[in-house]
């Protein structure tokens, strides 16, 4: 019964959102240091898995650095590929969720509603980027790590799916700050934790709808490509090829 005029107005405001969030990953700059992974863990209250669970393949990483070896010995090269949720415009994970826990926000984010998720894990199967992470057990943090939980991010219980949100809490506070001053969010004002911590600035985040933003410029680069473009998922993450190639 969304007859409440205020609620309707609120909704139409978000529906007509002026933003479309985009990330650019410059593979030429990535050194594989995994600072982004650590920052993401700290920012997003990602559960600590420990050695044993990690060996079982149950460590949760919203962003990971995939390492591929190229060439034959002795001319072997390690190639790094940071992979996070690609926030696809046509996301394969969304239609398959039987309870609408996986849905698309007007700003192009692929959101996961933890409270709605019942853990059928179909979305996890259907994500070609294997970006979705499942909580196989309830989370725990060794003391004193529990003291550093981010109050802006909900802690997920066991049995629900989770994944990269593009640090939606930072996006929200950035938008609120801009809204108070009656302006659009400035380019570079919002930085997800991984972007902020990348020492080589391999990750760039911004608004695709702003033609002057850095991501808008970089997206047009001839080096640009999307992961598994042929699947037609239209990701919101653009990769830039290595220059050495």
């Amino acid at each position, binding site marked *: *019964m*969304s007859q409440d005029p205020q609620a309707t107005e609120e909704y139409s405001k978000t529906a007509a959102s002026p933003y479309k969030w985009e990330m650019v990953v410059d593979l030429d700059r990535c050194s594989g240091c995994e600072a982004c992974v650590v920052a993401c863990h700290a920012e997003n209250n990602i559960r600590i898995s420990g050695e044993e669970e990690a060996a*079982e*393949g*149950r460590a949760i990483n919203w962003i990971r650095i*995939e*390492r*591929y070896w190229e060439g034959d010995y002795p001319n072997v090269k390690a190639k790094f*590929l940071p*992979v996070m949720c690609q926030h696809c415009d046509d996301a*394969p994970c969304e*239609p*398959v*969720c*039987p*309870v*609408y826990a996986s849905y698309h926000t007007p700003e192009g984010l692929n959101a996961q509603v933890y409270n*709605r*998720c*019942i*853990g*059928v*894990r*179909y979305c*996890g*199967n*259907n994500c*070609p*980027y*294997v970006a979705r*992470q*499942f*909580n*196989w*057990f*309830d989370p725990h943090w060794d003391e004193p790590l529990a003291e550093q939980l981010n109050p802006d991010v909900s802690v997920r*219980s*066991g*049995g*629900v*799916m989770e994944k990269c949100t593009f640090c939606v809490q930072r996006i929200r506070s950035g938008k609120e700050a801009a809204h108070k001053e009656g302006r659009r969010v400035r380019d570079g004002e919002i930085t997800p934790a991984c972007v902020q911590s990348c020492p080589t600035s391999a990750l760039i985040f911004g608004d695709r709808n702003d033609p002057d933003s850095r991501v808008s410029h970089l997206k047009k680069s001839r080096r640009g490509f999307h992961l*598994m473009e042929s*699947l037609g998922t239209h990701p919101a993450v653009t990769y830039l090829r290595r220059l050495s190639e």
Partner: protein
Amino acid sequence: MTDRPTVWEEMPKINRDLLSPLQTTTWTYYLWVGVLSCFVAAGAGAWTYQIQTGIGQTDLHHPIFWGSYIASFVFWIGVSHSGTFISGVLRLTNAEWRRPVTRMAELMTVVALLVTTLFVFYHLGRVWRFYYLIPYPNQRELWPNFRSPLMWDATAIFTYATASTIYIYLPLIPDFALARDRIQGWRKTVYGWLAIGWHGSQAQWRTLEMAIRIITPLIVMVMISVHSIVGFDFSMALVPAWHSTIFAPYFVVGAVHSGLGMVVIGLYTLRRVYRLHEYVRTEHFEKLGKLLLVTTLLLAYMYFAEQLTVWYGQVPDHMAVQNSLLYGAYAVPFWFMVSCIYIIPLVTLVWPRFRQWPVGLMMIGLIINLGMYIERMLIIVPPLARPRLSFQWDEYFPSLIEFAILVGTLALALLLYSLAVKFVPVISIWEEKLGKKHAQEH
């Protein structure tokens, strides 16, 4: 004409023979039920432990999000196709030999469907929130997502369960009436309710036959749709080697294949336990053997078409899966499965003499079902274990908790079936009599 009285004289014997499992129970039966109950209790304990501690008690892990529970779900739905296929298709085609087989197959359908539903619950990460899947009115106007194949599946299974309950109930009414008239005590009252006033008038028979004639083609169509939708659960996904158009028909045939195998096992066991040799004859095993041969060939043909298409295309994503099956990490179970569901049934069932050997057919039924269970695992696990980003490749093998739950559930299915045998006649008494009458007339 002279031997007409003999048919009528046979009727009391048929009543006696076929009602006797309802009336007499041996100590071995109680022992069997007791043992099964222990296994069920162990399985229930394992499930409770899994709910309390987390779904991580399985060996499932990133990126293999589905495993033995979904495989078992597909397997048990397959078993549930036994009843509908055997009795539905044979009723439609007026096959006279179906008479002693239909009821026990239909019972399998109902039991298997109950068990199938359980696997959905085992699988859920937060099973206590299962009702989110049900379209109930709520203040937030949240509804289930009918774009999801899982919702199609839930709808299909609910339809199938309802329809097959009606389908088994209709031909049971005259038998319930018979039981009401022959059995004393509290059960008489229950049978009385279930017989809903059946007294065998001409009008009642006409109505019953009409009702059966209407529901039979409907249930056959529902059966085909149900397993197609189970196939859609996989083929609608983008996962390499799942995204295939052949999945829906392939799943239907696969289900009938394992369902027939299960019927042979049931037929053999019940005949032995309740000495039904007069009713379940070699002829029935032979006919079922022929049907099994047909499904073996049909399934092998579809599997070959599927694998050849993948192999000839040489698309790397799909080849990663196929290579892991043909000579990679899953080669041993793969070739074992191929022997169990194609090669062994084919080389044995082509021999007419073999088809007349009930023990042999029962063993083929066991082998087929073992193979089909592995086949379901191999449909689910290797494609998930070989995602397009090869950095994520992994392996999976069910954990002890999973095994405990699987065995407990198998025990539950056997237990439910054993209890049902004590409550409904395993051979449709009136249809058997009708068959005798037809045989005499023609």
